[in-house]
């Protein structure tokens, strides 16, 4: 029983990182109509940045001060420099951007492998390996820090989208771009901002990931699988759906490792996804 509870709680903690990655991914999908395959690869890139800084004595949480603004600018630059020109050239943006971002993900993976080698890396900090004891539960401090980071970022995204004027404009463009344009909302500005925020959130997810997991240049593929799972279950229409789905996927993955070998967890997840889609073809949260 204690074992199940432990698996459930750590699953929920790691699930918050899935949720954060899924949130940024679905923001980009909803507003820019781009399937941003490179999203998890950028998070892994951020994890390597954390690794680099940690080797120089910078705490992962402090590295946010570099990662967040850098990734925001990267997102804006990527939209303005790559996606928008591609969209203006016409054609099927969904397909074009998928190929484009897939290519970028592969390129990034190769660059990381060329610099650091293909093997896994771990970020070691003073509190690595220590845990907070809570009754029968032992919660690693790195997990708590990573999950806290993801949760705070998701909450900030939610407040931005629901309580500020630019955030409401983002939701308006998401729900009806022409209606938004008729409200004097500049679609280009909003999309640019959305891209910046989403990529910045991928950077934060990378920092959280570096705290919790080991990572290698290729691990973005595994993360991509999780992101797809999360957005399929949660639907791409709402942040709340994505967050619940992230927690669910995290918890299920961890619980499944109690009964099956870890390497089989994705299989178990896809099997449950298959059943879910048969029962509810539009996802759990589709309006």
């Amino acid at each position, binding site marked *: 029983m204690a074992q199940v509870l432990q698996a459930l709680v750590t699953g929920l903690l790691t699930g918050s990182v899935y949720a954060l990655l899924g949130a940024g991914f679905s923001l980009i999908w909803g507003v820019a109509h781009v399937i941003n395959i490179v999203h998890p690869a950028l998070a892994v890139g951020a994890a390597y940045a954390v690794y680099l800084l940690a080797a120089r004595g910078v705490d992962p949480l402090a590295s946010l001060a570099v990662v967040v603004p850098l990734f925001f600018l990267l997102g804006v630059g990527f939209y303005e420099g790559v996606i928008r020109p591609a969209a203006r050239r016409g054609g099927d943006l969904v397909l074009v951007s998928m190929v484009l971002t897939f290519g970028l993900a592969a390129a990034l993976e190769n660059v990381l492998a060329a610099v650091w080698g293909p093997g896994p890396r771990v970020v070691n900090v003073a509190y690595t390996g220590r845990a907070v004891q809570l009754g029968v539960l032992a919660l690693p401090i790195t997990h708590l820090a990573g999950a806290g980071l993801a949760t705070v970022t998701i909450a900030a995204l939610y407040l931005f989208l629901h309580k500020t004027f630019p955030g409401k404009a983002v939701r*308006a463009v998401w729900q009806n771009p022409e*209606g*938004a344009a008729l409200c004097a909302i500049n679609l280009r500005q909003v999309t640019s901002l959305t891209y910046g925020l989403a990529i910045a959130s991928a950077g934060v997810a990378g920092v959280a990931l570096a705290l919790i997991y080991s990572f290698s240049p290729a691990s973005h593929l595994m993360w991509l699988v999780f992101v797809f799972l999360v957005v399929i279950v949660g639907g791409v229409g709402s942040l709340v759906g994505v967050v619940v789905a992230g927690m669910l996927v995290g918890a299920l993955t961890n619980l499944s490792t109690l009964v099956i070998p870890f390497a089989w967890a994705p299989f178990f997840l896809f099997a449950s996804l298959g059943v879910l889609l048969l029962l509810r073809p539009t996802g759990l949260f589709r309006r």
Partner: protein
Amino acid sequence: MLRVEGLYAAYGELEVLHGVSLTVEAGQFVSVIGPNGAGKTTLLRVLSGLHPTTRGAVVFDGEPITGFPPDLICERGFVHVPEGRLLFPGMSVREHLELGAYNRRARTHLREQMEHIFALFPILRQRHAQLAGTLSGGEQQMLAIARALMAKPLLLALDEPSLGLAPRMAAEIFAALRQLNHEGLTILLISQEVTQALLMAHRAYVLETGRVILDGPGPALLHNAQIVASYLGIAATS
């Protein structure tokens, strides 16, 4: 207030507006009527920047706005209540009103403008926290108009605001438009409700297959035999 000169527009190779010209003076109520497929919706979409024009000029409030993007045109005060309403289904009534006032000119007057709109459409005050997707058709149309009014329009352009509404609801919408016009708002109305649209109009235009074939004071057009034959005859029986 608005001068449209020889406007052309196309979908791909298919040209659907062939040199439309019309004028709307400040404070006027102007109606555009015409059969299905005449190009009424296209005309408004071109005017508000949602659809490109191939040739022609649009002058609004003394300045050319031809080829401007929709956000700039709205900011200038030409505000479009589109066919199909184009609301945000997952956002509340209040959020629609806030977004309506997104442009800098309107945002500073957000509170008082919202009060004004709640006075015009009291049902929206009751429904202020409700999501647009859960409103009735008539309420959605009111919300679409309200959202546009929040932008502080100099000219309000509406595309078939009574389409699909119960007669009582349609009458309420027309009454609101008449009141707004009396308060000094310039209105450009597209409507299939020919009698209503012509009765209210200082000036009316009949659009057919992308051309203006007739124009004049609304009530005078109502007595025009051509109109009676081609629209009212049909409208009365349908």
